[in-house]
């Protein structure tokens, strides 16, 4: 039995296989509509989410399966003080697979240690979010066509932005990937990701506070939101929340075939006017999330 807690648990070959299955689902959805008949996905969301939870649920429904679960901690027994371990022991006796989001980092790992069924980490605090990374990879695959030989800029909250950490780690396993980390000083990418993941992999990277400095070189610009829920101090959040705003004028400095991604939800960091630009791919990205999760559910349930 396999779980998915950290994107690096999947080999490059397995990611290629998931991307291929997702592409096949997009091309031939009817082939997959009964694959998970009589299977149940439990979505345990101890922290609010729209996209991730709904895309997991849509994915399971499109595979012909069913969904049960909760969408906030207040409607679960954790509000009564139940431990993650106990919740999972119970839920794994009701469901065939579990998708779990939790504000505490490492909670899905604890769940996987106690579960009788596969557990998917649907986001744990500011730590990991592997299915968002799979979503990002599927979008890059469909829009750029390859993972090797790309220059990707990450912009915004790179300190707490778990999607950035996971995507940078995943891309570090491909050839000739250049990474540009654009953030305010206070929200720089954690040093351990640079020193323990990117440098040993031989990844060329640059850190800058200037969004425009490398704009013309980028194949992918990955924008992120400064997340209010990650700050203990509201004053810090207010000071940093509008550090970078991508507008149409800036997008026009990008290559014609570049793409702008964002894990969503956005607040102010991408102007609405950018949505109409052909480089804006974040809504396509959200759609890719459903298909890659379908592929992942099939893989973890070992359904061919």
């Amino acid at each position, binding site marked *: 039995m396999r779980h998915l807690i950290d994107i690096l648990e999947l080999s490059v070959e397995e990611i290629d296989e998931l991307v291929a299955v997702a592409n096949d689902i997009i091309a031939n959805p009817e082939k997959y509509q009964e694959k998970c008949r009589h299977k149940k996905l439990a979505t345990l969301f101890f922290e609010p989410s729209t996209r991730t939870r709904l895309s997991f649920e849509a994915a399971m429904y499109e595979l012909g399966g069913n969904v049960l679960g909760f969408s906030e901690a207040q409607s679960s027994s954790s509000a009564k003080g139940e*431990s993650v*371990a106990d919740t999972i022991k119970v839920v794994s006796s009701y469901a065939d697979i579990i998708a779990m989001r939790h504000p*505490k*980092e*490492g909670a899905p790992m*604890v769940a996987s240690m106690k579960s009788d069924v596969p557990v998917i980490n649907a986001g744990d605090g500011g*730590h990991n979010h592997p299915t968002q990374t799979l979503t990002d990879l599927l979008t890059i695959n469909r829009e750029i066509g390859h993972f090797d030989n790309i220059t990707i800029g990450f912009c915004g909250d790179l300190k707490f932005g778990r999607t950035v950490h996971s995507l940078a780690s995943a891309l570090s396993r491909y050839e000739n990937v250049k990474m540009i980390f654009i953030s305010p000083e206070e929200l720089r990418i954690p040093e*351990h990701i640079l020193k*323990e993941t990117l440098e040993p992999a031989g990844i060329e990277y640059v850190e800058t506070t200037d969004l425009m400095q490398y704009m013309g070189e980028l194949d992918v610009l990955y924008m992120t939101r400064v997340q209010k829920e990650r700050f203990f101090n509201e004053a810090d959040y207010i000071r940093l929340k509008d550090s970078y705003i991508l507008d149409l004028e800036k997008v026009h400095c990008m290559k014609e075939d570049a793409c702008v991604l964002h894990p969503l939800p956005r607040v102010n960091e991408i102007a609405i006017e950018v949505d109409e630009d052909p480089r804006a791919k974040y809504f396509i990205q959200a759609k890719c999330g459903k298909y890659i999760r379908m592929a992942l559910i099939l893989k973890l349930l070992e359904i061919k």
Partner: protein
Amino acid sequence: MIIGNITNGIVLDHIQAGKGMEIYEVLKLSELSCTVAMINNADSVKMGKKDIVKINEVIDLDLDILGYIAPTTTVNIIKDGKVEHRKRLQLPERVVDVITCKNPRCITSVERGLKQSFKLTNREKGTYRCIYCESEAK
């Protein structure tokens, strides 16, 4: 000061000065019924000062914990008054319930009954990270 040699037992030598008491506590040596000698700030050619612990009995030692707290330690097993076996320690791959994760966002801060577990992520720098949230041990 003279502390006699032991015939059968363990000598923990080359302990970084000041770490001896920590080892004494972590290895729960106070619970032993045999003679235990603690020598602090002994002169050392190699280290300047060092601590030494002598245990007058061969016991099972948790070498992982010892390696984490005091990696310079050499463990000498003494039999019939002679060093039968000498072991140099190295940083263990895992340490359990020795370090506490300081990240307030870590699941270990709230989950009952969860062991604090850290893995070695950089041997050269001796960096340990929580297996749950990957925060560096402080």
